[in-house]
C-alpha cells in the first residue's frame, strides 16, 4: 500500500476520505447567525479605512450593515457593483494585508471584522437565491475584443457588456477563469466555484466566449484592432522564471503542478513526491507546498533565499504552511538538483546585495518545484516597463485603442482583486472613449 513514506513520486499516499477532508474549505462558510454576529462587530466607520484599502473600493461598512439588517442580497449587490468577482475575492484575497489589516478593530484589538468571510456570506447567498443581479444597457453597436478570461478579462468584459457593448472574450486555455480556475489553491475555491462564478457572470449576456483562441497563435493584435472598436489585454503572466542551476530539468514549475491539481477530478490519482522542496517565497510557493503536504508528501520544505521578514507570502500564509507541517527555510538558495536530493547554499546580504556564503547543505528531494515568479509571454509588440505592458491609470497601452490590465500590466500588486479593479476601470475608460463621453 502506498503511504507518505513510499519513495519516489507516486499517487494515493492518503486515503480518499482524508484527501477530501484536507482539501475542504479553508474557512467554513458562515451561517446566517454567525454572519449577523460577525457583522455586529463593525463600527460603520466614517470614510472607512477598510474601504480605502480594498483595491476595488467596496463600500464595506454599508454591505456589512446590510447583512446585519437581514438583507444579504442587498449586501451582495453593494459588493458586486464594485467587484463582479466579489465571490472569488472573498475567498482568495489576502485580507490580512488588505481590508482587514487596516480595520480599526484590527488596529485596536488585533481582531478585525471578518470582512472576507462576510463578503462570502453575502455573495454566496445572492448566487444561491437569485439569478444574475445586473441588467445590460441598451446595445451600443460597439464591439470589444477582450483577450484572456482571467479576473481582469472577466471584469472588463462584464462591465463592457453591462454598458451595452458587444464583447468577444478570447481565451487560449480550454476553460475560462484564468488563475481562478488553474491557479488558486484548491481549498480556497471548493465545489468548482471558479467555473460556477464564470457561468453566473456570463448571465449578463452580450459576451461571447471563444476558448482555445490564442493571441500570437492564430490571433494578432493588428487583426483584433481592425475587427473590433477596442481591445483589452488581460493575458496574465504565462511563463515562469528559471532557476539557472544544474539539473534544472528535474524541477517542475509550481504553477503547472497546481494547474494539474486544480483540473484533477480524483486527487488520489495525483502523484506527489515523498520529499518535496519548493523554491520560492510567495503565494505560489506556499500553495504548492501546502497542497503537496495535503496530498500526503512526508516532508515538504520551502526554501527561500532571503529572510522571513522579506518573504512575500503574508504572515497568515506562512502560518498556514507551518500549521500544515511545511518546513520554512530562510536564507538558502538552490545550487544543484540530482540523485533524489537538492543542494542549497546559505546566503547573506553583503553590501546590500544577496550572495552565497559558500556553505552548503543537502536535502532529500524526489520532487522540486520552482516558484520564483512568473513572466510575461504575450506582449503584442507594446511598450514594456519592468517586464510588464506599460499602462496608464485607466489601462491605456502605448497603442491607441488597446488597453491592458491585471498581472500582465504595469502597476498594482499581482492579486485577483487588483486584476478585477484594473479590468473594470479599463472598461469604464473604453466606454468613455467609444461613446465620446
Amino acid at each position, binding site marked *: 500500500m502506498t503511504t507518505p513514506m513510499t519513495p519516489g513520486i507516486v499517487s494515493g499516499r492518503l486515503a480518499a476520505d482524508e484527501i477530501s477532508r484536507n482539501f475542504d474549505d479553508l474557512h467554513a462558510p458562515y451561517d446566517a447567525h454567525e454572519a449577523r454576529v460577525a457583522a*455586529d462587530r463593525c*463600527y460603520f466607520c466614517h*470614510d472607512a*479605512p477598510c474601504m480605502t484599502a480594498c483595491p476595488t473600493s467596496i463600500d464595506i461598512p454599508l454591505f456589512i450593515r446590510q447583512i446585519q439588517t437581514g438583507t444579504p442580497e442587498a449586501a451582495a449587490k453593494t459588493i458586486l457593483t464594485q467587484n463582479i468577482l466579489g465571490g472569488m475575492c472573498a475567498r482568495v484575497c489576502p485580507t490580512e494585508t488588505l481590508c482587514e489589516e487596516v480595520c480599526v478593530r484590527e*488596529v485596536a484589538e488585533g481582531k478585525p471584522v471578518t470582512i472576507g468571510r462576510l463578503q462570502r456570506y453575502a455573495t454566496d447567498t445572492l448566487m444561491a437565491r437569485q439569478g444574475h443581479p445586473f441588467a445590460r444597457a441598451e446595445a451600443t453597436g460597439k464591439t470589444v475584443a477582450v483577450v484572456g478570461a482571467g479576473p481582469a478579462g472577466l471584469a472588463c468584459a462584464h462591465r463592457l457588456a453591462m454598458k451595452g457593448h458587444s464583447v468577444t472574450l478570447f481565451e487560449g486555455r480550454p476553460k475560462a477563469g484564468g488563475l481562478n480556475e488553474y491557479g488558486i489553491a484548491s481549498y480556497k475555491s471548493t465545489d468548482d466555484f471558479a467555473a460556477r462564478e464564470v457561468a453566473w457572470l456570463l448571465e449578463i449576456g452580450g459576451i461571447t466566449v471563444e476558448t482555445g483562441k490564442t493571441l500570437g497563435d492564430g490571433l494578432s493584435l493588428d487583426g483584433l484592432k481592425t475587427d473590433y472598436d477596442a481591445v483589452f489585454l488581460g493575458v496574465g503572466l504565462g511563463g515562469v522564471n528559471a532557476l539557472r542551476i544544474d539539473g534544472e530539468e528535474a524541477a517542475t514549475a509550481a504553477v503547472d503542478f497546481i494547474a494539474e491539481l486544480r483540473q484533477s477530478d480524483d486527487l488520489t490519482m495525483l502523484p506527489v513526491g515523498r520529499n518535496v522542496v519548493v523554491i520560492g517565497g510567495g503565494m505560489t510557493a506556499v500553495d504548492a507546498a501546502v497542497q503537496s503536504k495535503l496530498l500526503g508528501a512526508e516532508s515538504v520544505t520551502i526554501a527561500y533565499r532571503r529572510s522571513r521578514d522579506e518573504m512575500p507570502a503574508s504572515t497568515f500564509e506562512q502560518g498556514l504552511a507551518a500549521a500544515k507541517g511545511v518546513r520554512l527555510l530562510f536564507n538558502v538558495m538552490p545550487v544543484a538538483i540530482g540523485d533524489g536530493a537538492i543542494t542549497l547554499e546559505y546566503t547573506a546580504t553583503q553590501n546590500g546585495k544577496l550572495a552565497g556564503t559558500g556553505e552548503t547543505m543537502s536535502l532529500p528531494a524526489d520532487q522540486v518545484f520552482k516558484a520564483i515568479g512568473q513572466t510575461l509571454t504575450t506582449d503584442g509588440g507594446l511598450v514594456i516597463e519592468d517586464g510588464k505592458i506599460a499602462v496608464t491609470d485607466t489601462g491605456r497601452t502605448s497603442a491607441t485603442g488597446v488597453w491592458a490590465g491585471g498581472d500582465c500590466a504595469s502597476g498594482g500588486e499581482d492579486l485577483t482583486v487588483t486584476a478585477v479593479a484594473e479590468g473594470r476601470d479599463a472598461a469604464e475608460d473604453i466606454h468613455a472613449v467609444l461613446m465620446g463621453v
Partner: protein
Amino acid sequence: MADLTSNFLGIKSPNPFWLASAPPTDKEYNVRRAYEAGWGGVVWKTLGSEGPPVVNVNGPRYGAIYGADRRLLGLNNIELITDRPLQTNLEEITRVKKDYPDRALVVSIMVPCDEESWKAILPLVEETGADGIELNFGCPHGMAERGMGSAVGQVPEYIQMVTEWCKKYYSKPVIVKLTPNITDIRNPARAAKAGGADAVSLINTINSITSVDLDLMAPQPTIGGKGSHGGYCGPAVKPIAMNMVAEIARDPQTHGLPISGIGGVTTWRDAAEFMALGAGNVQVCTAAMTYGFKVVQEMISGLSQWMDEKGYTSVDQFVGMATPNVTDWQYLDLNYVTKAKIDQDACIKCGRCYIACEDTSHQAILMSEDRVFEVNDSECVACNLCVDVCPVENCITMVELPKGEVDPRTGQTRGDYANWTTHLNNPSAQAAE
C-alpha cells in the same frame, strides 16, 4: 462580604432580590427552586377570584427584541394572571412559606373592583401565612379589558378605594403595584398612599407591539393571524422604570413611601441604581426568564463586592442616596461648562464621533488627512453625542472648564451657579423681577 439582609416593610429577606409576580413564581415547584438558587423573596404569580380560573392563549404568548448576538433586550407578553385554581395556589403558598420562613413571600392579587370580591379573598390569603400582598393594578392586556389590572391602575380613585378595602380586611403589609401606562406616575402613587398602602412597587409592563410579521402582516406574537398589544419588560424598560421610581421618591407628597423597584433589573448594578434612586428592594422577572434562577448569584456577589468597595455595611445605607440629585431642568446650572476631549492614544480612528457631530450636531470635531480627530472647543456645545457613539469606553471624556476661564465658544467667562429661573432669556424670570 457585605450584609445584604433586607427589611422591606418589616418583611425580612436574606437579600433585596425578589422575583416579581410572573411565570417564575407561578407555582410551588418554581418558587422552591428559586429559593434554593438564592432569591431573597418572591411575589407569587397573581391570584384571581375563586371559581373557574382564567385561560391563556394556546399559541405563542411572548415576543422579543434583540441586541447583538440575539441578546434579549426586551420581552413582551400577552399572558394573563394565574390559570390554576385558587385553592391549589393557596395550599402551595402555605406549604412553601412554612418550609422557607426566612424568605419573603408576598401574594399578588387581582380580583374585580368591588368590595365583596376583595373581602372574600383576603382572609384566604391571610391564612396562608404569607408576608404581605401586592395589588396587581398593572397588567395591561386581557385583564384590563375586564375592568381589572391597569384599568384600575389608571384611575387614582379606584386605587385608593381598593387599597382601603385591603387595609380593612388584611392585617399585613399592602404593596400597590403601579402600571406605567399612564402620563404622570405620581398620581396613582399619591392615591395608593392616601388609601393607606405600605408601599408601591413599579413598574408593571408597558403596552407594546414588539414586532410585525411582514409576511402575515400581523403583530407578533401572532395567534392565528392576529396579535394583541402585550406588556413590555426586560432591560429595554429600565430607564422608563427608573424615572418613575425617582419621580415618586422625590415627590413631596409621596416622599418616604417605600418603593419596590421593578423593570429590567438584570445585574447587581441595575439593582444598585434602582435602590440609589429610592427603591428599598428590587423585583426581577425577565432576567430570570432569560437566564434561569442562577442569575441571582451574580446579583448577590456583585452588590456585596460593590458595597464592600464603597464601605456600605447594609443595603439601607445607599437607598435613596441619588434621589436628592434628581432635579428639574430649570434648576440645572447653566454656567457649568464642559468640552469634549479625545484621548489620542485610546482613539481607534473609526470616525464615528466626527460624522455624528458633523452631520447631526455642531460641527465641532475636526478630521485631518491622516485621520486624527480633534475637538474644536470654540464649536463644542458639550452635547455628549460623540461620547455616546464612540466605541471605545473613556476615549472621549467631558472636561470641565474651571470657573473663571473663558469658554471659547461663547467668549464668556464661566461664572457661579445660575439656572433658568433667573436667566435673562426667561420671560417669567424677567416678569418676576
